């Protein structure tokens, strides 16, 4: 498979473009007036009935996308995380429940724009906190350009609704991305760095500082990228934690975030007897917001957490 170096923004655009070319049911939907950084150019490649600007649809774009999905289309729509609650979260929940309870196909993807603004301030306290409790809703959180393309492709091809957590502050992150159709199985966590003494579990934008911290410590720390938040790759998480005996969760949101609680519960339930230390958590929510210092501060916070865990 040939590989190209592109940034996440282009990787997401490529996934949508390829899927729209592959399947005529895939359409791109957005509220009119919303300037997307990602879907630019699609309206030049596809007919107007494939790239649809709904006007007005500020509060209803997700609900309308759900209706289109019920009728056999596969809409891919875009909503900012801090606006999702007022723009159709409950309609998304109903669609997910319909899919889970009755097996009705509701193939739709909501690209949830989240992450830190250019000045380093979080624009949302993590949409996963209110997305995770929704039964039947798939949630993916890519950390690399390759996974952004592969996970979005997988989400589009899934018969149920998916939320794609799109970190806007990672748009310019460049990575090697397989050309052509590229899918990432869901759920499948990925070991980014192998180790034997502890497992650091991260996802999305928390992965890069986690990998850097583990590498700098050079203390046999394994780093696991969740990639999929719902459903969780329980087997992948437990395999790693049972092998290392210690787990540290790194999370962009508050300490008691839904993801941290879910992963912690999974480990306590199934791997308690394999643990050599309590499950620890590090939140990056309160770490320095200055762009110049942010990465170093985040890496330092994770290293502190690792040191404490290894010393237990």
């Amino acid at each position, binding site marked *: 498979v040939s590989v190209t170096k592109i940034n996440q923004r282009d990787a997401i655009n490529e996934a949508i473009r390829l899927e729209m070319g592959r399947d005529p049911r895939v359409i791109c939907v957005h509220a009119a007036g919303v300037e997307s950084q990602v879907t630019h150019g699609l309206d030049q490649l596809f007919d107007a009935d494939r790239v649809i600007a709904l006007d007005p649809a500020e509060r209803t774009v997700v*609900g*309308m996308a759900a*209706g289109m*999905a*019920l009728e056999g289309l596969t809409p891919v729509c875009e909503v900012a995380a801090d606006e999702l609650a007022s723009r*159709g979260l409950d*309609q998304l929940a109903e669609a997910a429940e319909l899919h889970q309870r009755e097996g009705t196909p509701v193939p739709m993807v909501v690209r949830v724009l989240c992450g830190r603004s250019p000045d380093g301030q979080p624009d949302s306290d993590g949409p996963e906190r209110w997305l995770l409790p929704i039964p039947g809703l798939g949630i993916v959180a890519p950390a690399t350009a390759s996974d952004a393309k592969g996970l979005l492709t997988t989400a589009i091809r899934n018969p149920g609704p998916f939320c794609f957590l799109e970190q806007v502050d990672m748009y310019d992150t460049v990575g090697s991305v397989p050309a052509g159709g590229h899918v990432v199985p869901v759920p499948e966590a990925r070991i980014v760095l192998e180790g034997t003494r502890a497992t650091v579990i991260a996802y999305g934008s928390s992965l890069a500082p986690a990998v850097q911290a583990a590498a700098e410590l050079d203390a046999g720390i394994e780093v696991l990228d969740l990639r999929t938040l719902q459903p969780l790759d329980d087997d992948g998480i437990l395999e790693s934690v049972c092998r290392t005996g210690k787990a540290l969760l790194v999370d962009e949101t508050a300490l008691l975030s839904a993801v941290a609680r879910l992963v912690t519960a999974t480990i306590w339930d199934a791997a308690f007897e394999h643990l050599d230390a309590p499950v620890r958590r590090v939140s990056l929510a309160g770490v320095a917001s200055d762009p110049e210092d942010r990465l170093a501060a985040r890496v330092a916070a994770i290293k502190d957490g690792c040191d404490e865990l290894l010393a237990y």
Partner: protein
Amino acid sequence: MQIVASGVVREHAASLTARDRIELLRAMMLARATEQRARTLDGREDDAAPAARRHREPIGAGAAAALRPQDRLVAPERFLAAHLSREEAGSTGRFSSAPDLVPIAVGVAFAVDARGSGTVVLTLADEGAMPSERWSEALALATARRLPVVLVVERDRPMPAAGSADQPLLGEAVDADDPEAVLTAVRAAVDRARAAKGPALVTCVARTPRPAKAGWRRGTEGQIRPTRDGDPHDPIDRYARRLLRSGVPRQEIEAALRSVGEGVMSWRP
């Protein structure tokens, strides 16, 4: 947005056959019996709440009867008669909130309109949905794109004499207790939507007072019948008497009601 008012629909469709009318009665009775059976199985036989929802039986039965098999019904499950009437054609009704449902129905209409299939989407709601911004926004989009969607709204009281720009509904509407009036109005709206003339709105106003207590009770196993002191405004009772007056044989009416009662009351989970 096309307004379908009672001036149009007070003249009931002469084309309705005795079979059509019995089917309307049967659909209402099926919803009533199903709800009653569910309450019995759930140990809530004394729950009086269903009496307040009886207007939804003629609304649901009449509205669904206006659809063709290829049409779509997207409605809250509380309009049970509509869903049960569409048993073979299918419907979407798990959605609990009517304001949330309207955008979904408009999305379905968008998709069927893109296919050019001549399919119409019917959605039902109560007036509680109307103040929602989602309601307004979805209807505005449906109107702008002339989507084939018909909205049927249940209201507790007549509309004001004149609507506002945000809620362009006029005063007159069909009688919510009259399934034939609902059917006739919705059929006109559906025909209009199918002819690519855009969305339409039918308001169903409950003109009769709501009973304080349920006027129907379960008799011996397999039977459902009105109590002697039953509610005189009960839409099923009223419609059955009306069919009798119009010459529909009593035996046919009783047979239809009996078959529904026996079928539903014998069902066990």
